[in-house]
């Protein structure tokens, strides 16, 4: 059937299982928006306040479900506004298809109004991108984009479609949902070698990353830990893959990781890394990382093998499948001495924690814990970037996979509210966003979107009137030169801002008033904002100084 390019785009998106797209219209996508208008009963479009946040929403949708998120923007500034969102998805391996309009083929290359080479700009931050010059390639290109986004290690794909391709006509006879390419089967020799190394280990440690979450490998990881009597630690991106309250789970690793988790890994004799990429924030000083420890690296992306850390065995392929095959050959064993050592580390961590967290103040720990009482196991927990992000990562008791949504690799301040919108639409559940006064300042215009659709997002703004993470570094490493991190001169009342957008807001000014105000706020069924006053000199602890090793870990403020 002869259809316009714009209609072909919409029909192909629907055929790929897309139920919702996020975006913002503009001159070079009017045709596409006309097609969306005609198909509105089959494909929902959510209008954002800014393309960047639409992109984060598509990203949040994908993180919460594992399905490919879709965002649409116009040419020029619309497309460039997507860049941060695409880079965020790229660094965290999120399946995303970004569709941009461009000026007609005849105007390309003439610096036309709102023309920009977005495929050139996004080249290093996409898995692949396409410029669809000819309408006959349109459907095939969109199908390919979905296949690339979902296959192997997921990631974002951008499709740039000139206006004349959108309003041209071509034959369309239906599209079928493409399946991701099957991951390569791990060789039997690698599996055998892994089994041998695991059986030899006396102090094994399972270290999980975002790839474990993406592969839905929760059960296989816990099964292995039970079989070999190993503790589990996680990168920031791996959080929520294994319940935080699981007895084998020691918490986050790395720069702000839990003491027992970081120390336990350093003391182990075998690290089984599952879908982790040994980023600098996770390892600290690579030259000193796990020098006495053997490493087995399971990952779907062979380019991650021996990239940052030299490992003893690489197992490349679907980690869920690899773990299943390894587990099948393991007999349950007990490692009493190792477990006792881990228990000692935990006890030490608890003592350090007691020392560092006074019980009579409105601490981030008290706030995160209070919020967690109102969450159920499947509640999506979204963050922005900064101190609040680390506190949420450290203290929130995650229960189910894909419930922790955070910008790990790129560390994008302003990620949160858009991502929360996406997560809320994806799950149909009330979603909690932890943000800070700095990050929230970058995305609060999305309150308009939240109000318009009455999206049930609980926005918890930790307001310390400083850019806390940078201030912490200035405190520790820059002689307390608080260069441009003091927001004191600003008198922003985030509750009033929320109210101006139509969203109710509440202040929490002290520990005493927290339970009552929190209960009141959580009783609101639609969107709601809670602004909590946090001390400006709260630190995220423990902290491994940048480029430092486990010996230099700072666990209390006194040591800093």
């Amino acid at each position, binding site marked *: 059937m002869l259809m316009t390019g714009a209609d072909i785009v919409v029909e192909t998106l629907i055929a790929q299982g897309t139920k919702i797209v996020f975006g913002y219209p503009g001159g070079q996508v009017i045709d596409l928006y006309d097609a969306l208008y005609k198909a509105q009963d089959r494909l929902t479009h959510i209008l954002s306040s800014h393309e960047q946040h639409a992109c984060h929403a598509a990203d949040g949708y994908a993180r919460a479900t594992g399905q490919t998120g879709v965002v649409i923007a116009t040419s020029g500034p619309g497309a460039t506004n997507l860049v941060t969102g695409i880079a965020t998805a790229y660094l965290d391996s999120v399946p995303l298809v970004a569709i941009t309009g461009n000026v007609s083929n005849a105007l390309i290359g003439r610096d036309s109004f709102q023309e920009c080479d977005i*495929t*050139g700009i996004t*080249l*290093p931050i996409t*898995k*692949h991108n396409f*410029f669809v010059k000819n309408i006959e390639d349109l459907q095939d290109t969109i199908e390919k984009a979905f296949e*690339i986004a979902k296959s192997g290690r997921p990631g974002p794909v951008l499709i740039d479609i000139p206006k004349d391709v959108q309003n041209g006509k071509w034959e369309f006879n239906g599209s079928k949902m493409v399946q991701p390419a099957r991951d390569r089967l791990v060789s039997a020799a690698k599996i055998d070698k892994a089994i041998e190394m695991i059986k030899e280990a006396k102090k094994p440690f399972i270290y999980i990353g975002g790839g474990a979450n993406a592969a839905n490998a929760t059960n296989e990881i816990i099964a292995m830990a039970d079989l070999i009597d190993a503790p589990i630690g996680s990168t920031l991106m791996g959080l929520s893959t294994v319940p935080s309250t699981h007895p084998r789970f020691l918490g986050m690793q790395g720069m702000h990781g839990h003491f027992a988790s970081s120390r336990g890994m350093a003391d182990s004799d075998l690290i089984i890394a599952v879908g982790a990429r040994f980023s600098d924030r996770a390892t600290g000083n690579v030259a000193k990382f796990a020098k006495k420890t053997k490493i087995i690296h399971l990952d779907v*992306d*062979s*380019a991650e*093998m*021996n*990239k940052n850390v030299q490992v003893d065995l690489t197992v490349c392929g679907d980690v869920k499948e690899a773990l299943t095959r390894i587990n099948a050959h393991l007999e349950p064993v007990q490692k009493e001495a190792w477990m006792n050592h881990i228990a000692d580390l935990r006890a030490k961590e608890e003592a350090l924690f007691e020392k560092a967290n006074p019980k009579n103040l409105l601490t981030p720990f008290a706030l995160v814990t209070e919020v967690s009482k109102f969450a159920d196991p499947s509640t999506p927990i979204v963050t922005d970037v900064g101190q609040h992000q680390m506190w949420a990562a450290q203290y929130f008791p995650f229960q189910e996979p894909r419930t922790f949504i955070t910008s790990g690799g790129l560390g994008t301040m302003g990620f949160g509210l858009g991502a929360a919108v996406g997560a809320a639409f994806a799950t149909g559940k009330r979603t909690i966003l932890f943000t800070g006064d700095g990050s929230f300042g970058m995305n609060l215009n999305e309150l308009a979107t939240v109000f318009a659709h009455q999206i049930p997002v609980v926005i918890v703004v930790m307001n310390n009137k400083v850019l806390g993470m940078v201030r912490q570094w200035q405190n520790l490493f820059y002689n307390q030169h608080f260069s441009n991190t003091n927001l004191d001169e600003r008198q922003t009342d985030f509750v009033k801002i929320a109210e101006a957008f139509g969203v109710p807001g509440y202040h929490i000014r002290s520990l005493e008033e927290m339970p009552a105000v929190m209960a009141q706020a959580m009783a609101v069924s639609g969107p709601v904002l809670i602004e909590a006053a946090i001390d400006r000199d709260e630190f995220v602890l423990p902290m491994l100084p940048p480029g430092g090793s486990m010996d230099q870990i700072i666990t209390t403020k006194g040591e800093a």
Partner: protein
Amino acid sequence: MERFEIACLVENHSGVLTRVSSMFTRRGFNINSLTVGETEHPGYSRITISVNGDEAIRSQCIKQLRKLYNVKLVKEMVPSERVSRELALIKLKNTPETRPEIVSAVDIFRCKIIDFSPNTLCVEITGDSEKIDAFITVVKPYGILEMCRTGIVALQRGCHYLSDDEPQ
């Protein structure tokens, strides 16, 4: 620093060369030379890249190239298992005093003089990179006015082909 050569078969689309070269820039790898040209198959081009780097860079280069969607096959061209050629055009100062020596060097290295003027002459030399390096060393004292090298092209020896190696 070591030098190694990688051959890749890429789809013959616009922008593919940019994708390949931008990967090198982005990862901080140092390209020594890069050539690209047609192959026996109209849909594919072959890129030969010479890179400076250690073992870690070598393995990352190959793996990162394999991740590029338009790159179909990647293989390291190990010196003992391949034949390689490079071409250079070298314009030299031409004086009555140096001319006989240049002509005999051209003769010994089995290259050709392809242009001649009262004050300049241009030499075409083909061979592996080491041969060209050696010739340049010899003629440098006579005065190199301008020079242009193509970068290497390489094929595996015997009945081995790029397509033997499916991505690992």
